[in-house]
């Protein structure tokens, strides 16, 4: 019973010459909130996308809730049916929302429960409305995505993932495409989910949010996990020089005048 909900071991993935993942290990227990941080190009997004099979790995092994999702040495591991089974237990929230533009907010939220879980339309809509209410969007249920703000769209996307009643939620830079004033409403929803005990793996650039919500921080750089620990430890007393540099850069952007002028 003590085996982790999601266990990734020795993940390796490269695109041509770029080593996206270089022997990455990650185990996440049920109820745990793990936040992955690191400079862009460090492999965070690759890691989270391999965890539900949106991207394949060159070698290594991913086991979700006892089912092997990815293992290039096992011919059965990547079978479509297995992949679908595992994916329905993992909710995913994308940077660019990826809502279905031809469906209303409610239509987005009810599609998969009906087609994958076999719920009736009524059951799916009841579940969907209650989730949209939790997101503060009950009045927007019959609006189409293009009629919603970015923050509202992302909250619909979170409701859509939750409607499958997943065992864990994956957030891939869920607030990076939002206007700054809309970031808060999405983070609030995520914070509430974490408080409710949802297992979450979060890739984000919001360091204050990470510090508040994470049980464990994972710092990545150049495709490797360079440090992992409680947020206070990592932020205040990083063991690695690279972590320290990254933390300084993101917490005090104004002190990085040199970087800013480089971008001119």
């Amino acid at each position: 019973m003590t085996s982790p909900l999601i266990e990734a071991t020795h993940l390796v993935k490269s695109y041509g010459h770029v080593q996206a993942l270089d022997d990455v290990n990650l185990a996440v227990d049920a109820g745990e909130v793990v936040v992955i941080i690191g400079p862009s190009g460090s492999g965070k997004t690759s890691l989270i996308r391999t965890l539900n099979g949106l991207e394949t790995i060159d070698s290594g092994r991913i086991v979700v809730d006892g089912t092997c999702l990815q293992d290039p040495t096992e011919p059965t591991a990547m079978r479509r049916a297995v992949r679908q089974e595992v994916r329905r237990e993992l909710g995913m929230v994308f940077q660019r929302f990826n809502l279905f533009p031809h469906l209303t907010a409610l239509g987005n939220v009810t599609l998969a429960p009906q087609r994958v879980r076999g719920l009736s339309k009524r059951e799916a809509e009841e579940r969907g409305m209650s989730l949209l209410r939790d997101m503060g969007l009950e009045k927007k249920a019959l609006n189409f995505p293009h009629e919603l703000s970015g923050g509202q769209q992302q909250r619909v996307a979170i409701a859509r993932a939750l409607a499958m009643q997943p065992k864990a939620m994956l957030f891939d830079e869920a607030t990076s495409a939002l206007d700054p004033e809309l970031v808060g409403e999405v983070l609030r929803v995520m914070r509430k989910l974490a408080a409710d005990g949802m297992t979450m793996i979060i890739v984000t650039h919001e360091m204050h949010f990470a510090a508040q919500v994470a049980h464990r921080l994972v710092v990545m750089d150049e495709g490797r996990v360079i440090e992992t620990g409680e947020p206070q430890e990592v932020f205040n007393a990083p063991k690695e020089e690279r972590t320290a540099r990254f933390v300084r850069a993101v917490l005090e952007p104004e002190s990085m005048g040199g970087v800013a002028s480089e971008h001119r």
Partner: protein
Amino acid sequence: MPGTEDQSVADWIPRLLEGLQLTVLLTLGGFAVALVVGLVIAVMRLNPKLYVLYIPSTIFVEIFRGTPLLLQLFFAYFALPSIGISFSPLVAGILGLGFNTGAYLSEIFRGSVLSVDKGQWEATEALGLSWGSSMRYAILPQAFRIALPPTGNYAVSLFKDSALAATVSVSELLFTGQMIGAETFQYMQVYAVIALMYLAVSYPTSVALRRLERRIDTTRPGRKRRKALVDA
């Protein structure tokens, strides 16, 4: 009867209307064939790595796009009987027009499916939807909106191209007109009426298609909404 020049317009208009009926039948039949052919070929060509499906469907498209429609009609009506396959003129016309248009439509459909944002596929995959469900409920509805305007154009085009079926002796509108012209020498009147008849069908069709395009455009405000079963 040749030479009976005293025939009035009212005498030959009913014959033209019969011709128009056949033209419409050719178009509807041909378009139905084209939609099925186009959809099947498009799906076969979606994944170039599935050689068994991709290669024959690609050959099909290249043959039908690379040779004249007239030749295809001649094949269907004059050449195939010599290997034991014969059709009536109408069926030959419908098949020739349908397969030709289908080859073009397949490219439109394939392009439309491929132009749906990759993130949409990822969203369906992340939700655990099967390939079939993803296609049916997420991808095709979006591809349909993209494909509708060019597909409508091909429908109108097919309506006009159906005149080529005259060459395999389908007595459609233009063919009937030529007969009447030869009988009455009232070419000006006959062809003017024929032109009006083509326009009387094609123009309302174009307008209706434009309306349909606007109606299914979800990004347009004020679109009618379905009620939810559950209250907010």
